[in-house]
């Protein structure tokens, strides 16, 4: 049934037979899923089920963890991102990421956003200014900081810092944005702002968000992916999945019987 809906969407990412291990311990078990362009996809599931690991596999940031190994494929732009000849720098430029804890770099607000531009060789100052402004606007932070771009970024509030991290990721013009529980360290008002922002952003970007906040996932996502103990139990359009889950486990989770 959901396949019919899916056909009309354009996929941007296909995950095929994907496994992940930390050392001997298998964390991700045969994951198969598609991500649709310009949609908000929410990965949900109880804590420890492997959501973060899966998300971090998509831009290969998990390669930084030395004993992490994978098998299977993640196809992006017609190519397995785990192929040997993939340029990690370029991959990560195209697939941006925002972490759970807001981590501003030890520099000014402006320089935070411009950091990615500088390393990717955009030398023209005027162009940089323009992109920084645009990124801050898209992250709904511009109005709050436009007069103090030179202020150290850590002086911002937690919610502002998280939006700065989003702006920083947007500045390098990614196609996909990965968000790992971006609101879990924030108060309700800041959370609300970020949720609104995410919904806006999906017009231009593909969003994949990990959350264990089911209400949040239901509110903002177009597609939902439910994971349990390393397996992808079920996925589909959010509205359909919330109303009529096919698997008992999903139903139990949605009803709060598993957490």
């Amino acid at each position: 049934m959901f396949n019919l809906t899916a056909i009309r969407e354009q996929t941007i990412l296909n995950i095929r037979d994907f496994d992940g291990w930390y050392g001997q311990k298998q964390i991700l078990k045969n994951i198969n899923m598609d991500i649709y362009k310009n949609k908000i996809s929410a990965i949900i599931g109880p804590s420890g089920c492997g959501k973060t690991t899966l998300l971090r596999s998509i831009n290969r940031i998990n390669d930084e963890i030395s004993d992490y190994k994978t098998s299977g494929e993640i196809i992006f732009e017609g190519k397995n991102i785990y192929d040997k000849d993939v340029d990690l720098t370029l991959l990560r430029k195209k697939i941006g990421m925002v972490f759970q804890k807001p981590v501003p770099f030890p520099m000014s607000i402006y320089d935070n956003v411009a950091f990615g531009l500088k390393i990717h060789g955009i030398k023209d100052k005027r162009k940089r200014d323009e992109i920084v402004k645009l990124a801050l606007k898209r992250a709904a932070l511009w109005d709050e900081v436009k007069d103090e771009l030179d202020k150290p970024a850590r002086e911002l509030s937690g919610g502002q810092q998280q939006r700065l991290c989003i702006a920083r990721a947007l500045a390098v013009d990614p196609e996909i944005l990965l968000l790992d529980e971006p609101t879990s360290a924030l108060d309700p008002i800041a959370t609300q702002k970020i949720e609104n922002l995410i919904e806006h952003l999906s017009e231009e970007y593909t969003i994949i968000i990990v959350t264990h906040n089911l209400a949040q996932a239901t509110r903002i996502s177009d597609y939902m992916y439910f994971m349990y103990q390393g397996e992808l139990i079920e996925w589909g359009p959010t509205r359909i999945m919330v109303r009529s889950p096919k698997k008992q486990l999903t139903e139990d989770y949605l009803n709060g019987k598993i957490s």
Partner: protein
Amino acid sequence: MKKKINVDFIVSLIFRIISYMTFLVVVLIIFIVIADGVRYFKPSFFIEYPKKAMTQGGIGPAILGSLIMISLILLFSIPLGLLTGVFLSEYGSKSFIGKIIDISVTSLSGVPSIVYGLFGLALFSITLGFGTSILSGSLTLTIMTLPVIASSVREALAALPRELRESAYALGAKKTETIFKILIPAGKNRIITAILIGAGRVIGETAPVLLTGAVFYSTKLPKSLLDPVMTLPTHIYFITMSYGADAQWMAKATSSFLLILVLVIYLIAFQLRKEEKNV
């Protein structure tokens, strides 16, 4: 029940008294050294040469010598200690080479200063032919400072949140770009603290300099890095050990000045460390 309360009462009393007394002794030493020397301070003391068998004049050349030495040492040891610390923290003490470097740096931190003196003498002064000179002395002290700076840099970087590194990688930054543009600036305060503490320690270092770089008394300033030099600590040592009561004032005054210098460096370092904790 009652007995137990008494144990704590008695022990805490005794331990408190001992701790307070130690504290007082330390404060007293610092106070005596500084106060008993400060009274000889006058402008000429800081500029002039020592005169009349150390009974008059000042410590100008020793101050200059110490400044030249410390500048050279920092020039050499900052890049060396910084990059070694970066290596240990970022490229892993897990690999074989990493483990060896780790053990090497740790071993260096325990080597007695006089042994560094012997090493500097054999390597820099004799084998490389630098003689008893500023260069030999500075290189010797550089090696002594390496483990101090390297291990603090390593700790400073290791204390940074993992997300900081990963945020940079997630933007497509390369490893060394992340290290130099993000991690080192983020650990800046702690790194500067380490450098200051290293500097404070090395500026008072005497034994290795006696063997490799010090001249007892010189009537002219060093013209090149291959000339020997007077330094504050060696000057204090020579006066105390080789001169009579008439010269003692100069030992006191020089000690006072050196101690003030070191304490100022340390206080700046502690201030920075405190700010770091408050962030």
